[in-house]
């Protein structure tokens, strides 16, 4: 593998921080492998985002505004990435470890006979070989893997794994539409339930609520204001999602999202193993719970035993006051 290709996830040209993290890392990896750093940006808004990506240390940014990319599920995207990969030659393909990224990865495994490593927290080159570091078995083991028997390797990378640093002068090139393709998976309707300004998986701060919140309201009246004050996003346990208090897109854990924020605040959450595996790699974990014997005490950094309904409003106020004092 020589080149590095970043498959960019975006909505109408708006992307997440992880795109710039991957673009920055791609440069370093491509240099170590002796190849080029590419990005592929597809669909409505691709041209504008391509311009933005020019400020990152890539060699080539491949763009296409082809309407089929948004009209049909995944297939057109794979055809474009396939074309870029074939012209780039043996390469490492990076995408974010999100639903979109895992979809792209799954398809590429077969299309390119590629090796696949999911949910990486680090990707390096050692002795000219790609090394992928990823927590496995629910974070109980940190693994280092290599690729073999393949020209292409696909890695989905956890947001917040790398720093993003601009600098560079990439060239933007227009992709030609793959010839002779018909698509069948028609996107009929798109509904956004959690149109949070900050994506949960890449938020530096996550304020997460569980069954202890007792209903849907405290998520908006208590957690959201604290998340806003700390510049973070709101998450939840499966218990809260199953109860219908929040959409499943906020669920963190084994069957939900995996997050690695700098700060994770677990509010009214017991810390079941299935929840723990989705947040145990957070930098600092603070728990608020009325039960001193709660399992989360085993792996949180700070447990405050008390009533969340009394503590959260006060804490939000303190954060606001401190901010006001600084300006």
């Amino acid at each position, binding site marked *: 593998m020589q080149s590095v290709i970043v498959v960019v996830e975006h909505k109408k040209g708006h992307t997440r921080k992880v795109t710039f993290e991957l673009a920055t890392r791609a440069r370093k990896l491509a240099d170590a492998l002796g190849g080029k750093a590419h990005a592929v940006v597809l669909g409505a808004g691709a041209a504008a985002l391509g311009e933005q990506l020019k400020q990152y240390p890539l060699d080539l940014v491949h763009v296409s505004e082809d309407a089929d990319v948004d009209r049909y599920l995944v297939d057109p995207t794979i055809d474009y990435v396939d074309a870029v990969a074939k012209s780039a030659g043996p390469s490492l393909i990076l995408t974010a470890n999100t639903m979109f990224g895992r979809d792209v*990865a799954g398809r590429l495994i077969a299309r390119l006979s590629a090796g696949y490593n999911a*949910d990486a927290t680090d990707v390096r080159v050692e002795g000219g070989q790609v090394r992928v570091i990823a927590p496995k078995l629910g974070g109980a083991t940190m693994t280092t893997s290599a690729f073999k028997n393949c020209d292409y390797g696909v890695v989905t990378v956890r947001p917040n794994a790398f720093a993003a640093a601009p600098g560079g002068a990439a060239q933007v090139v227009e992709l030609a539409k793959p010839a002779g393709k018909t698509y069948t998976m028609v996107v009929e309707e798109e509904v956004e339930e959690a149109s949070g300004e900050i994506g949960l998986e890449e938020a530096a701060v996550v304020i997460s609520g569980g069954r202890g919140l007792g209903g849907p309201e405290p998520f908006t009246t208590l957690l959201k204001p604290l998340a806003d004050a700390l510049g973070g996003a709101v998450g939840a346990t499966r218990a809260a999602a199953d109860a219908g208090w929040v959409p499943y897109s906020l669920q963190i854990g084994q069957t939900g999202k995996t997050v690695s924020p700098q700060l994770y605040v677990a509010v009214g959450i017991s810390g079941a193993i299935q929840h723990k595996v989705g947040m145990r790699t957070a930098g600092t974990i603070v728990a608020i719970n009325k039960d001193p014997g709660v399992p989360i005490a085993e*792996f949180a950094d*700070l447990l405050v035993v008390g009533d969340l309904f009394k503590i959260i409003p006060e804490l939000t106020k303190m954060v606001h006051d401190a901010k006001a004092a600084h300006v």
Partner: protein
Amino acid sequence: MTVKLVPDVNAEKRIDPATRRLVRTGVDTVLNPYDEYAIEAALQLKEKLGEGTTVTVFSMAPESGKETVRKALAMGADDAVMLTDAGLEGSDVWDTAFALAQGLKKHGFDLVICGSLSDDGSTGGVPGAIAEYLGVPGFTNARHLDVADGRLRVQRETDNGYQTVSGPLPALVSVTMAVGEPRYASLKGIMGAKKKTIAVQTPADAGIAQPLGASGAKTELLEFAPPPARSKARVVTAEDGPSGAAAIFEFLKEKKLA
């Protein structure tokens, strides 16, 4: 539908230093939790479409997993195929998807239903790769599915909501836990499952000529180690709201997080 057998989800899992594979002995083998939802989705669809619909459990697993596969039959599936061979040991995502796709092709299908994620592998890559190898539409992360007039319509979860997508059959879909709680096997179902067929398919039966398993895999585990340990929490008992908030705020300042 495709079903993976995984070590008990609540057991502490580890990797064998010698083989660099997940230790599967000494731990109960269970159906991958997501795949129980795939079975549920398949059975719901069968109930809707009526007689003439057959639900087949398809699993790539060692012969020792037979009794676990039978649990899927006890839930109500009609029969099972196990893709089994010593040469499949040590398979990674690529081997698994490739082998399952060849096996499914040989067996025939109108709709393949997978789970979204396996409890042990957790890559979620297998369903999409199978769809690509089969050359059929592949809808991942479905929370609702419906078949009408030879078309599959799926409501699928996205990172911030959901979307409705449709396509022609044959097709593949992977489901999330929102499709409905898996039913329990009834006593009648358990008894009935004993008489149901579990056919064994070898890679040769599926028309696979190339080496799979560890020698065909495209990834190799080099090292593994426990993650840096997290110590137990510092515990502060809050008498009231302000003191609890102050304890957190001071801690955040100390960690330079506020």
